[in-house]
């Protein structure tokens, strides 16, 4: 059952990393994710805090600025590579789906 951490990303992990291609303050990420997903994905503040902490520990993001308690982050090369791998995995899945259902009746 146990999976290697961050080998595959959950939807919330994916969008947090995606947001951090540009520097963002932690607190603004929640709004940003909502915006870029048209409100489809919401990240709870507790989950966001824990994700940022874990991404930082794993070296996938780094802190860029501290203004009082407002901390800003940006993606590192490792984070970008993880995001890229996830994107490719998702594309592969989509491609498999299309190959399977493409010429057949879509469900």
């Amino acid at each position: 059952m146990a999976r290697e951490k961050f080998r595959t990303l959950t939807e919330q992990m994916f969008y947090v990393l995606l947001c951090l291609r540009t520097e963002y303050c932690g607190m603004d990420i929640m709004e940003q994710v909502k915006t870029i997903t048209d409100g489809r994905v919401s990240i709870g503040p507790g989950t966001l805090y824990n994700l940022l902490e874990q991404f930082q520990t794993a070296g996938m993001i780094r802190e860029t600025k501290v203004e009082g308690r407002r901390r800003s982050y940006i993606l590192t090369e490792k984070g970008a590579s993880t995001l890229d791998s996830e994107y490719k995995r998702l594309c592969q899945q989509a491609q498999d789906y299309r190959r399977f259902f493409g010429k057949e009746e879509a469900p």
Partner: protein
Amino acid sequence: MKDKKRRLEIISFYDHTGVARHLEEMAAKGWLLEKISNGLWCYRKIEPAAIRFAVTYFPKASDFDPKPSESQQTFVDYCAQSGWKLAGLSAQMQVFYNEGPNPVPIETDPVLQVENIHRAMKRNFLPANLVLLLCGLFQFGMALWQMISNPLYALFNNYTWASLVPWSLVIILTSTEIISYLRWHKKSKTAAWEEGILLPTRSTRPLQIAVLVILAIFLFFWFLSLGGGSNLIVALLSFGYMTLLFVLVFLLKSFLKKKQVRTNVNRIVTFTACFVLAFGLMALLVAAIMRADLTTLFNDNSDVETYTFKGSTFRIYQDELPLTVEDLTEIEEDARYSYYAEEKSSFLAYKLEADQSPTLDNLDPPDLTYTLIEVKFSPLYDIFRKELLTQYEYRNEYTDYHYQFVPVDPSPWKAEEAYQLCYGADSMEEYLIFWEDTLLEIHYDWQPTPEQIAITAEKLHPH
């Protein structure tokens, strides 16, 4: 009408579902949690409202923190951004509420949430309950061991029995808490990974309340059963000692938090103070008892006078004894005796230890000592019988001649069995007499006649 109230909430630390539900019910009744302070949950009066509560855990937090750390404050800021306001903090537990409709939950990833809760529980809840469970098992085991290894003492001792009840409750409570949490954690971990949901926690509140009620009833009846005298004084002193120790340690921790002392310093000082105070208060108590000659408080016997012999002072007791030397033989008019009786009783058995001894300045009159045991719980009879018959065996390892109880005719005693103590080939005037539900160990200062034996049996086992 009061617009604030404080409650001592009976909760399981890990029971986030139960706590949130309880607080939502309180808000619906018009009471909003304002803060958690010194173990008390403080509420303020509001218009009854449907307010959503969420309980989260911050593993790095500690009950010794003078204030929320910078990182915990950041967490609170994130929550505030989503409309979640902080209601109270207690160690790693954080309680938030949200008055908006359909707010985004604080935790939206069950896998992370389960991991986070488990990290927090490993910091505080699990080790604390485990230590308490081990203490309970140790104390319970010690009391049981005492009963098995020294039943003649322990089975009459109400303190030994009394200690079994609270410690068994501690064992039940802590083991239930640990097992309930670990079961929840195991199931939740699977559900979070496989189904993407967080399972609700099951409250152990009914059990906790039941345990507290049983404990309160037990303490009430136990204090009543002590009656008065030394037993009550010892019980009150023990209770006072524990309460004072708890209050002092608690106040010290709160004081250091108020003075913004660093977490680790507070933790070390509080733990050290706990040990020092535990021993210090006990030493003070003993010193006070010695200094004020409070030892008389612990003496239930009726000492009416004292006498001095070779520079030391001795008490002369005048307790009522069911059998005296005077009942058996004539004594000189000027003979001075001390009559000492010590009774012990539990719901299993009753024991009387009697000693009639002449004062040290007139050693001629004969003395008489005996122990009478009445068994209320028949399976114990054989244990006492065996214990009495083998009581001198330990001495036999160091002597050439052996102590042993030799069977003698029980009919003069109207008993089932009778034994006389022998040392090698010499008979001694010490007897063990076993009636149906009563056991007697008696030491005469002379060889008793059949008439004296009959009087002894009649006085000490009249039925």
